[in-house]
């Protein structure tokens, strides 16, 4: 809870510090000073700073996030419409990332200092170094323009059929995944390198277990703690990274909306979005912490 309170105050402060007068923008360029003053009063921007903060927090406590200045919509419904798009994009990309990243990282660790290791690490380095927008454009050229497998942009809601939704999301999610796979493969490799040198791995081999069981069960279970941490970070990063991806693929997600809101000085929308995203990150961390206790009996309370 204190974290969420701090986020809400930060969300408020950040925009108050930015230059630009929303009243002037909303009233329009040709508006008279009186009209601007009226809009300012309507928005409560004429009150003192502390008063504004108090009203903001008071409204938040009642679940009132205010209304967007540009969308003619309450902030909650505007975010509520777009958040599922962003979250499903992040989830789908993580869904691609975890199996591939963990497998590649384990492979590199197991065959450390061989050509397999070098090959995996080179791919991983490319993944984290190549800018997402460039990959996105290449992906569109290859899969949409040349091969025609998926639409180049746009969004089909999941309610209109899984196939259409997947086709519209697959390329954006894969684009996001490339960075994530690079990151997760590197994290998994270093975690596995550490675990594979542990005494209990030798014990597992001494029992006569196959390499598959030794690595897949004994080693991976121990590396899981670091893999969960990395995945939590990636999920948060994916939501942030969706800004660019949503622009490129014209997906109606929260990233695209927040860019528009910032451009238009839509204070309430930016603040509300920040707050809801902040809350989402807190929830992700909470889930990561819960997963820790499942993965590692040593942090479990009796």
């Amino acid at each position, binding site marked *: 809870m204190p974290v969420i309170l701090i986020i809400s105050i930060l969300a408020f402060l950040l925009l108050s510090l930015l230059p630009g007068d929303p009243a002037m923008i909303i009233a329009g360029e040709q508006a008279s000073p009186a009209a601007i003053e009226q809009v300012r009063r309507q928005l409560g921007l004429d009150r003192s700073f502390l008063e504004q903060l108090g009203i903001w927090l008071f409204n938040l406590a009642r679940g009132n996030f205010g209304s967007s200045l540009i969308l003619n919509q309450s902030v909650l419904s505007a975010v509520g419409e777009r958040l599922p798009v962003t979250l499903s994009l992040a989830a789908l990309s993580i869904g691609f990332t975890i199996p591939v990243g963990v497998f590649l990282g384990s492979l590199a660790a197991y065959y450390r200092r061989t050509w397999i290791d070098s090959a995996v690490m080179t791919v991983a380095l490319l993944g984290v170094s190549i800018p997402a927008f460039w990959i996105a454009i290449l992906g569109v050229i290859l899969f949409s323009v040349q091969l025609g497998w998926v639409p180049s942009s746009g969004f089909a809601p999941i309610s209109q059929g899984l196939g259409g939704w997947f086709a519209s999301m697959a390329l954006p999610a894969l684009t996001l995944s490339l960075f994530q796979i690079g990151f997760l493969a590197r994290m998994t490799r270093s975690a596995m390198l550490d675990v594979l040198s542990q005494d209990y791995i030798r*014990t597992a*081999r001494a029992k006569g277990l196959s390499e598959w069981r030794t690595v897949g069960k004994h080693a991976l279970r121990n590396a899981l703690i670091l893999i969960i941490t990395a995945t939590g970070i990636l999920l948060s990063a994916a939501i942030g990274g969706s800004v660019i991806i949503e622009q490129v693929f014209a997906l109606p997600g929260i990233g695209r909306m927040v860019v528009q809101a910032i451009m238009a000085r839509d204070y309430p929308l930016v603040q509300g979005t920040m707050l809801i995203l902040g809350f989402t990150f807190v929830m992700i961390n909470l889930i990561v912490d819960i997963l820790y206790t499942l993965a590692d009996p040593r942090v479990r309370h009796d």
Partner: protein
Amino acid sequence: MAAPLLSIRNLTVQFRVDTGWVTAIDDVSLDVGAGDCVGVVGESGSGKSVTALSVLQLHDRVSTRMPSGSILYQDDDLLRAKGSTMRRIRGSEIAMIFQDPMSSLNPVLTIADQISETLRQHQGLTGAAARRRVVELLGLVRIPDAARRADDYPHRLSGGMRQRVMIAMAIACKPRLLIADEPTTALDVTIQAQILELLRDLRRELGMSVMLISHDLGVIAEFAQRVVVMYAGRVVEAAPVTQLFRRPVHPYTMGLIAAVPALDSEAPRLTTIAGRIPGPQEIIPGCRFSPRCALVQPSCLDEPPSMQTVGDGQSARCPPRIQVLGVRHG
């Protein structure tokens, strides 16, 4: 004498370092007969553990090679055995326990899980049958309240209890040979005694051979029938335990025995062997013990001494001493 259960012949093990390969153990031979208990003793760095790990081929494959020698177990040369043969032998025919019970158990798996894995692998035992056997094994290694303990994770157990779990895991499939690599080194003295007693009882009950690795001559004296003394990667002396203490041949063995503190001794200082064991990368001409040896002679530096039989099942790698003792060559 019948063919030994395990026969290590002229084994050489090399590790990869930045500059190439260094020889960790060189020309090591030792036998473990059926039902025998062989002690391997030496300082840290003498190559005892390297020898032990070689038997089950547990060295890191990337950074280890074994250019010569053989490890014969029944009809197989373990150095050249297929992966599937090795896996069949590991944990079932030959089992191993390690020095540090704190790190040798997997921290994220329950004890029951880790023991029953061996049972499933080699005996196809699963479910309730495996569970029964796990509890039985935990009772056998004298873990109190075994049925409840089985579901604990290793971090809830003390070092002594964890070593008992390791032993339970090792004897689960009634192996014919148990390799115990410094099984009591990481434990309190009182716990040490309990673990050794447990091992002795289990050895008798199960009729298994034991290869006990220790730097503690006291432990070896109590436990082993035959002793192999290693120094700087070579076997320097091998003898039945009573013979070794009555008449040590190699000056290093003499030094080791002299260094065991006697309770009735009034000497103000502990006896030590001067100097330190050379690393595998240090090149020492001739006998590798010569820089520390009180009885060193010019001929010792000429060439590495060979292992010579002294008699009564005793052999040593020290021609000058054997000559002085005037013992017969076998």
